[in-house]
């Protein structure tokens, strides 16, 4: 069970009040892109054991979208942040660096 804090309304609740919507920060390649780019955009996902960035929505709450960084192995939630961004905040990345040294270069 994940304990999730919504950055839009400030509620902290367990995950059944929310809904996961897959990997975050995916580059949306448009119609003029190559086949490889389009395949990457549509189908290629990281699926790591460890740190993962995801899109979530406060489905049974304020209804707003947000981003979440969590560990797929331990279910630890590192933090949530605005949906209106292309990358995780540096502050959050630093926290994850401290907790999971070396996570940026998975073996």
């Amino acid at each position: 069970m994940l304990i999730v804090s919504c950055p839009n309304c400030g509620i902290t609740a367990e995950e059944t009040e929310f809904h996961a919507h897959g990997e975050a920060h995916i580059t949306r390649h448009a119609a003029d892109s190559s086949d490889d780019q389009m395949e990457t955009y549509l189908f290629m996902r990281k699926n790591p054991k460890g740190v993962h960035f995801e899109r979530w929505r406060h489905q049974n709450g304020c209804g707003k979208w947000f981003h979440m960084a969590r560990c797929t192995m331990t279910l630890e939630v590192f933090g949530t942040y605005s949906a209106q961004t292309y990358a995780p905040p540096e502050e959050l990345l630093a926290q994850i660096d401290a907790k999971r040294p070396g996570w940026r270069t998975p073996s």
Partner: protein
Amino acid sequence: MSEAVSALKNAVYIAGIAEISEMGAVGMITLRGDLAAKPLQKAAVAAAGVNVPDQRQCLTEGTGGMAWMSPDELLIMCAYDDANAKLADLRDKLAGTHALAVNVSDARAVFEVRGPKAREVMAKLAPVDLAPASFTPGMFRRTRIAQVPAAFWMPQEGVFRVVCFRSVAQYVFDVLCVAAQPGSEVGVF
């Protein structure tokens, strides 16, 4: 115009550990826009008869009231018969403002859960910390009741008002009654 009736025609259940009752037709207007904008605030206060609530709060006064729904949404409550007139007035006042106001009275059902065990009944159905120190009168919470979205607040200690979609009114009434069935006290609060 046809006679308006609420979803369950004021159904009640009094045999359990808390009283469950449908509140009948309640006027409700959804207002979306920039909640920090002065014209929107003024129009909302005029319609609801209360101040603009803070984040996750609900203010009520008589049949009027206003709840914070999300960073860009308020729920204005009023007598059912006043909703259309209030909506027209709101739209008039917000004609030059980027905002959206809709009468959602007929899309909703409202229940009351009343009694010393009301907190227990609600806690069985919603993933919310309902300890007396954590959830207090005046707070407004959007969440789920069993399997459907709902929102609730406490106008006073021992009383919850629950808002849900009209289409799931029977479901919500039934799960509230099950959670309040005789002998089902948990004794946790």
